[in-house]
């Protein structure tokens, strides 16, 4: 799986709350070599809970896939570099309880 950072302006068709869910790891924005929906303009997939949506280059929803993510796999995963991402709950941070 390859990781990519993109700018939120690269996907103007989706709301910032959706991008926040992606950065928080609640939802997954990805590309898959398996083209489940087969719409020609489909570039990205968004997995939101158990639903999977096909998106075009700008983030516009093309369709919700009827059979969820069947056959899909994550080949490339995307985050938004200009929006907050969660901090690591690292060993050092978690040891603050002892301070």
């Amino acid at each position: 799986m390859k990781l990519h950072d993109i700018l939120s302006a690269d996907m103007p068709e989706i709301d910032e709350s959706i991008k926040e869910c992606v950065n928080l790891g609640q939802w997954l924005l990805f590309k898959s070599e398996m083209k489940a929906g087969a719409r020609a303009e489909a570039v990205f997939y968004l997995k939101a809970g158990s639903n999977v949506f096909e998106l075009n280059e700008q983030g516009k929803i093309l369709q919700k896939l009827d059979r969820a993510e069947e056959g899909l796999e994550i080949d490339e995963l995307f985050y938004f570099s200009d929006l907050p991402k969660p901090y690591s709950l690292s060993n050092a941070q978690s040891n603050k309880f002892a301070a």
Partner: protein
Amino acid sequence: MSLINGSTRWVLFLSASNEPEDRHIFDLAFGLYCLTTAGINLSDIFIYVDGKNRAWINSIIANGSSTGVTIKESKDFFSDQAANKYENMVMFVTGHGSLSGIDSSLPITPYKMLHCLKSSPNLVKAVVYLGQCYAGTFNYIAAGKKPNAQGVYDPDVIFMGATNLHDSVSSSTTEQFAGGPLAWVANLFLLHVFKWICVPVDVDGDGKFTIMDAYKYAGASSNGLNKNIKARSFVNSIGHHSRWVAAQNAHAAAPTPQNQLALSAIQVQYELELGVLYTHQECWILNSIPAQQIEI
């Protein structure tokens, strides 16, 4: 002999009555990354994940190891255990749980899990970390070793729960994986158990890194974070409420797929913040005396 240097089967386990949640698969991918980073041989790590889309599951688990791994289904765990050749087993359970036990097509009850471990051939010690909600249903059962009529002891089983008779707490984090940093909503207790295995801490100061140290470390770390997360969630939920109302109004005015998805996105975040605010978590350990002697 320590667990890592001894004959130990390491089990990453996610059963599900429907499709598994991605965050739970990420829990196990992170576990795989930490186990291999700690020097545990990939051939001693066994992964069980339910779900129809095996390619999807594989693509997430692959973040834990650059080398390919075999992922079986939860039912295979029980048949594999019946043919066990290892002296020790360390098991990490993520996924959903309820009063009925661990979520599965047939819920895995405490008795079913205990019976499986107690009847495993060659097994001497089993350590089970339970991350699911209502893990406390596995407490107060006969886990300690006992002799049979011939004086032969059955396995000593140690259960540890992320939480008692409550939901368990998960929170967004970004952690290092084999291919780079990934974000997901991690089970707090399991996250810190895995971190402890990567970088053990001698909490009680006896000069040994024991299972009891791991329990205290994961419990204190997740409790400390839980407090901070609740404070942050209170502030976040105030902002989320107005955004949620605005998204509802936008969707009511123009019920487009874009607006529906935007509403769902803020609702997911709002519900997560509210859920954390009202979730208590307190870990527990059963059969704690041998846990003080078993070294990682």
